[in-house]
C-alpha cells in the first residue's frame, strides 16, 4: 500500500495548486471533446476525413492547429515567467518551477510551435505552387505529422506526469546528466524531441523530393515561386542538420538510461561535447525556421506590391549561401567555453559573413516595394513590420558575433532580446502573414481584415514594448534564467514594462483567435479562388482546392506564370473538359497507429520501463511490416466525380 502511494506520488506531479488546476482542466477538456464527438456522431468523420488522411492540404491544417495550440501553451508559460519577473522578490513561482517553465517554453516554441507552423505552410502551399497533386510520399507525410504530434504530446505530458524537464531548451550537460538531474523530466525532453525529430527529417526528404521531382511541366528550378525555393533550401538543411540532433539525443539518452559516459567526465567523457553537438544542429535549426519565413514574405510583398519580386536570382543565391554558411558558425553560441582565440576568431568571422546574404535579401524586399502599388492588407502589414523588427534582431546578432564583446552579452537579457527579435519578428510574423495570406486557400473564406489589423497592431506594438527594454536590462547586467532579482539595481521599471508588453501580446493573440471564430461564421467567402489577385499557381485552383488540386496540370512558361495566364486567358485550361481519371493515394490508419506505438515506447523509456519501450518498438516494426505488404494504396478519381467537383466550383467548361 505504502509502495503504491509512493509510486503514485512520484508519478503524478503533486503539491502545486496551479498544476492541480491544470489536471482538472485537462480532464474536463478531454471529456468535453469526447462528449461533443459522440453527441454529434463525429468519430467516424474524424477518423476518415482527418486522422487517416494523406492529403497534404489537410495534414497542413492539422500541423497549424497543433502549432496554434502549442503557441498557446508556450505563451502561457511565457506569461507565468513574466508575472514572476514583473517586480523584484516575487514568490509567484519558486526557482524549480521557474526552471521548468523556461525549459518547456523554449523547447515548445522552437520545436513544437515554430517547426510545425512552417511545415504546415509547406504542406499547404508547396504542392499547389509547383502544380502537383500531392507531395512525393503522401504516406510518409502523414507519418511525419503523427510523429511530430506524438513527440509533442509526450513532451507536454511531463508537467502533470512525472515532472517537467528543467535544464533549459539547450539541455546542457553536465546539468542535464543523470547525476545532477535525476528523475524523468530530462528523459521526456530527450524522447519527445527524438520522436518529433524523426518526423521532421522525413519531412525534409519528402519536400526535397517533391520539389525536385514533381514540378509542373515547364517549371525549371529558376521559375519556381520564392516560397518553394525557400522550402527546397530548408529541406536540404533539415536533411543535414537533424541527423546530428538525433545522434546527440541518442547519446544523452544512452548516458541517462544505460549509464554510458559520453558526456560525463567520470569515465573520460566530455560534457562540453553536448554543447558542440547541440549547436551543430542548433544553428542550422534557426535557419530552418527563418528561411521559409523569408519565403513567405517574398510572396506576400510581391503580391501586395503588385510587382515581380526584385532580384530573383540574388534571392536564390543568398539563400543557398546562407544554407552553406549556416553550417559553419555554430561556435558563436559558446564562445565563452574558451575553445581558444583561433577557434573564436574563425567562427566570429563566419557568423558575421551570414549578415551579408541576409542584407542582400532585405534590400531586395525594399526594392520590390519601391514604386509598387502597395496594398496594406493584414498579411502585408506583418511583412512590412518584419523588415525593421528583423533588422534590429539581425544587427544585434552581429554585435553578439564579436567574440570578445560576447563575453559581456552572453546569456544576458541582451541575447534573449536578440533571438526573440529574429524569431518573433521573423518566424512568428511570417507564420501570421502566411496564415492570413493562405487562409482562403485552406478554408474558402477570408479572415476579417479589420480584426486582423487590430491583432497586428496590438501584437506588434506589444512585442516591442516587451522586448526592446530587454536589450537595456541586459546591458544593465540582468542574466537570463534568473527566477527573481533584488530591488535597487535599476531593473525594476524595465521589467514591469516588459511584463505589460507580454500581456499585450497575449491580447493580440486572443484577437486573432476571435478573428478565426468570427470569420468562420460571418467571413467573406472566396468564390474566385484568387482573392488577392495572386501571381503563383496556388491561386489558379478553387478555394479550398479540390482533393486532386488541379483538374489538369498546367504548363509553365515563366516566373509568376499565373499572372501572365490571367492576362492571356490561359488559366481556363486548367479546368477545361474533357478530364481523365486522376490517380491518388489512399488514406491510411497506419501512420497514426505507428505514432501511438512510438508514444507508448517513448513513455516507457522515459520511466525506464524497458519492457514497455520494447513493446512500443515491436508495435512500430509491426506497422512497418504491415505497410510493406499493403498493395492497394491508391485509387483513381473517376471523370464524373471530377466533372461534378468542377461544375460545383463553377469552372466546368
Amino acid at each position, binding site marked *: 500500500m505504502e509502495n503504491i502511494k509512493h509510486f503514485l506520488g512520484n508519478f503524478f506531479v503533486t503539491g502545486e495548486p496551479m498544476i492541480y488546476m491544470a489536471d482538472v482542466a485537462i480532464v474536463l477538456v478531454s471529456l468535453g471533446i469526447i462528449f461533443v464527438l459522440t453527441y454529434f456522431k463525429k468519430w467516424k468523420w474524424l477518423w476518415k476525413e482527418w486522422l487517416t488522411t494523406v492529403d497534404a492540404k489537410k495534414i497542413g491544417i492539422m500541423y497549424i492547429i497543433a502549432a496554434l495550440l502549442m503557441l498557446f501553451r508556450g505563451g502561457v508559460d511565457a506569461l507565468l515567467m513574466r508575472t514572476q519577473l514583473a517586480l523584484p522578490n516575487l514568490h509567484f513561482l519558486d526557482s524549480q518551477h521557474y526552471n521548468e517553465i523556461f525549459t518547456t517554453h523554449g523547447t515548445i516554441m522552437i520545436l513544437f510551435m515554430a517547426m510545425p507552423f512552417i511545415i504546415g505552410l509547406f504542406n499547404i502551399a508547396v504542392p499547389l505552387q509547383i502544380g*502537383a*497533386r*500531392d507531395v*512525393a*510520399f*503522401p504516406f510518409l507525410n502523414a507519418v511525419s505529422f503523427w510523429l511530430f504530434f506524438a513527440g509533442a504530446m509526450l513532451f507536454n505530458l511531463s508537467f502533470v506526469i512525472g515532472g517537467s524537464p528543467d535544464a533549459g531548451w539547450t539541455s546542457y550537460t553536465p546539468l542535464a546528466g543523470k547525476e545532477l538531474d535525476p528523475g524523468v523530466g530530462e528523459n521526456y525532453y530527450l524522447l519527445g524531441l527524438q520522436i518529433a525529430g524523426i518526423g521532421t527529417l522525413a519531412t525534409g526528404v519528402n519536400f526535397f523530393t517533391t520539389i*525536385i*521531382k*514533381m*514540378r*509542373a*511541366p515547364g*517549371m525549371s528550378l529558376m521559375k519556381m515561386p520564392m516560397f518553394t525555393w525557400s522550402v527546397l533550401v530548408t529541406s*536540404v538543411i533539415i536533411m*543535414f542538420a537533424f541527423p*546530428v540532433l538525433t545522434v546527440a539525443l541518442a547519446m544523452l539518452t544512452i548516458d541517462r538510461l544505460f549509464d554510458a559516459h559520453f558526456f560525463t567526465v567520470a569515465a573520460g567523457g*566530455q560534457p*562540453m*561535447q553536448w554543447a*558542440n*553537438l547541440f549547436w*551543430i544542429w542548433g544553428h542550422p535549426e534557426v535557419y530552418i525556421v527563418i528561411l521559409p519565413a523569408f519565403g513567405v514574405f517574398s510572396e506576400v510583398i510581391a503580391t501586395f506590391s503588385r510587382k515581380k519580386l526584385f532580384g530573383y536570382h540574388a534571392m536564390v543565391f543568398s539563400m543557398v549561401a546562407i544554407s*552553406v554558411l549556416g*553550417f*559553419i558558425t*555554430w*561556435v558563436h553560441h559558446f564562445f565563452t567555453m*574558451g*575553445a*581558444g*582565440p*583561433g*577557434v573564436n576568431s574563425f567562427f566570429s568571422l563566419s557568423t558575421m559573413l551570414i549578415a551579408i546574404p541576409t542584407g542582400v535579401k532585405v534590400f531586395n524586399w525594399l526594392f520590390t516595394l519601391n514604386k509598387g502599388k502597395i496594398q496594406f492588407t493584414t498579411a502585408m502589414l506583418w511583412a512590412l513590420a518584419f523588415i525593421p523588427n528583423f533588422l534590429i534582431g539581425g544587427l544585434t546578432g552581429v554585435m553578439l558575433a564579436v567574440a570578445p564583446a560576447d563575453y559581456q552579452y552572453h546569456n544576458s537579457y541582451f541575447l534573449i532580446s536578440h533571438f526573440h527579435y529574429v524569431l518573433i519578428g521573423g518566424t512568428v510574423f511570417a507564420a501570421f502573414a502566411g496564415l492570413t495570406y493562405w487562409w482562403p486557400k485552406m478554408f474558402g473564406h477570408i479572415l476579417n481584415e479589420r480584426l486582423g489589423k487590430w491583432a497586428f497592431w496590438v501584437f506588434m506594438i506589444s512585442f516591442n514594448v516587451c522586448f526592446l527594454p530587454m536589450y537595456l536590462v541586459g546591458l544593465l547586467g540582468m542574466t537570463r534564467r534568473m527566477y527573481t532579482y533584488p530591488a535597487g539595481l535599476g531593473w525594476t521599471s524595465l521589467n514591469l514594462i516588459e511584463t505589460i508588453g507580454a500581456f499585450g501580446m497575449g491580447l493580440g493573440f486572443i484577437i486573432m483567435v476571435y478573428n478565426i471564430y468570427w470569420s468562420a461564421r460571418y467571413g467573406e467567402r472566396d468564390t474566385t479562388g484568387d482573392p488577392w489577385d495572386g501571381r503563383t499557381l496556388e491561386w489558379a485552383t478553387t478555394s479550398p482546392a479540390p482533393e486532386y488540386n488541379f483538374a*489538369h*496540370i498546367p504548363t509553365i512558361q515563366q516566373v509568376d506564370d499565373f499572372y501572365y495566364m490571367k492576362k492571356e486567358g490561359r488559366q481556363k485550361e486548367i479546368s477545361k473538359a474533357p478530364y*481523365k481519371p*486522376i*490517380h*491518388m*493515394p489512399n488514406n491510411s490508419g497506419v501512420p497514426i497507429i505507428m505514432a501511438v506505438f512510438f508514444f507508448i515506447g517513448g513513455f516507457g523509456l522515459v520511466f525506464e520501463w524497458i519492457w514497455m519501450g520494447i513493446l512500443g518498438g515491436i508495435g512500430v516494426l509491426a506497422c512497418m511490416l504491415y505497410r510493406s505488404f*499493403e*498493395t492497394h*494504396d*491508391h485509387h483513381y478519381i473517376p471523370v464524373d466525380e471530377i466533372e461534378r467537383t468542377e461544375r460545383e466550383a463553377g469552372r466546368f467548361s
Partner: protein
Amino acid sequence: MSNEHTQAHASEHTGFPWKHVIGLVLSLILTFAALWCVTSFAFSPALIVTVIVILAVVQAFVQLFMFMHITEGSKVWQITAIGFGAFIAFCVVAGTLWIMLFAL
C-alpha cells in the same frame, strides 16, 4: 519533371525486394559489429576507433547502393549531393576536433 501519370505513386514494383532486405541485414550486422567492438572491451581505444570508422564507411556505401539509388538518375545531382554531404561531414568532424581539443 513530371506528368499527370507519375504524380501519385503506385506499388507497381514486381518481384521480391532483395536489394532492400540484403541492405537491411548488412546494415544491422555492421551496426552490431560496431557495438560489440566497444562493449567487449577486447581492443585498445585506438583500434576501436579505427575499426568503427571502417565499419561506418562500409555501411555508408551499403546504404548508398542498396537504398539510395546512387547508380540511377542524373550524375550532376548525385555528385552535387555527395559533394555537399562530404563538405558538411568534413566541417562537423574537423570542426569538432579543432574545437574540442582546446589547443588553439
